[in-house]
């Protein structure tokens, strides 16, 4: 496989892992990947990179004291009590 092709496909990999590409280009990438270990690794680690950020985002919560100060700043503190923590 030529390195030229790796470079040519590089700009499509992000959409590829989102499953947003046309069948024909997906096939092109998959065919290339079958013979190019480098691109296989790049695609797998790119996919993993995105999924780690997705996962990390789910764990990012607003601290309770930040929420309370927000409600106070907005003069909505009377609605704080009625909410679950």
């Amino acid at each position, binding site marked *: 496989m030529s390195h030229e092709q790796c*470079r040519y496909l*590089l*700009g499509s*990999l*992000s*959409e590829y892992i989102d499953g947003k590409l046309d069948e024909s280009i997906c096939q092109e990438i998959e065919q290339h990947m079958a013979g190019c270990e*480098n691109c296989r*690794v*790049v695609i*797998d*680690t*790119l996919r*993993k*990179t*995105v999924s*780690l*950020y*997705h*996962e*990390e*985002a*789910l*764990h*990012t*919560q*607003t*601290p309770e004291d*930040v*929420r309370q*100060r*927000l*409600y106070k*700043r*907005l003069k*909505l503190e009377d*609605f704080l009590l009625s*909410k679950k923590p």
Partner: protein
Amino acid sequence: MGKAEEITLSIQALRSGDRAEYARLVDAYYQLVYRLALKMLGNPQDAEDILQETFIKVFRNIDKFDGRSSLSTWIYRIATNEALMFLRKKHPELVSIDQPTETEEGEQEPLQIVDWCCLPESELMSAEAKAHLDEAVMRLPLRLRAVFVLRDIQGLSTRESSEVLDISEMAVKTRLSRARLRLREELSDYFGDRLGERKSLL
């Protein structure tokens, strides 16, 4: 994932200053706004300021919400602009989001070719790894960072992100691709070392 369920809020009630309705709005969106600010700015104190300023602006400008975009897109736009304004004030040297300086932000050629996907979850999601993930985002140029945070951290669609940032969908895709490739590079650097450490233990 990160997206709020589009809850039904009465714009009418918000416009007339209904405090209970405002409280419902804040409850529905504060998590999203805080996370956006935190990931854009990388600092909890600054993120809190942006969180507060965003809702103050939302309340103040609700009359100007014309319903052409969804309420959540509109709130995202205010929050994103607040974060960008803050960053530009703090770091005037940072490139503007609209400035087309694609040259310095071309596609990152993959340099790190190491398959670290097999690392255990405990290693991939350790506190140290998470801190590293956040730092890597902070090293992205602003225009890439904003797109990455909206798409991959907040879970907005390409179209929604383009509305929030007022750029084309094509620009969203290009910037997202560049951001992801850069982050892949950074994470490969970091996790590649972790992989090396494990292997040397065997």
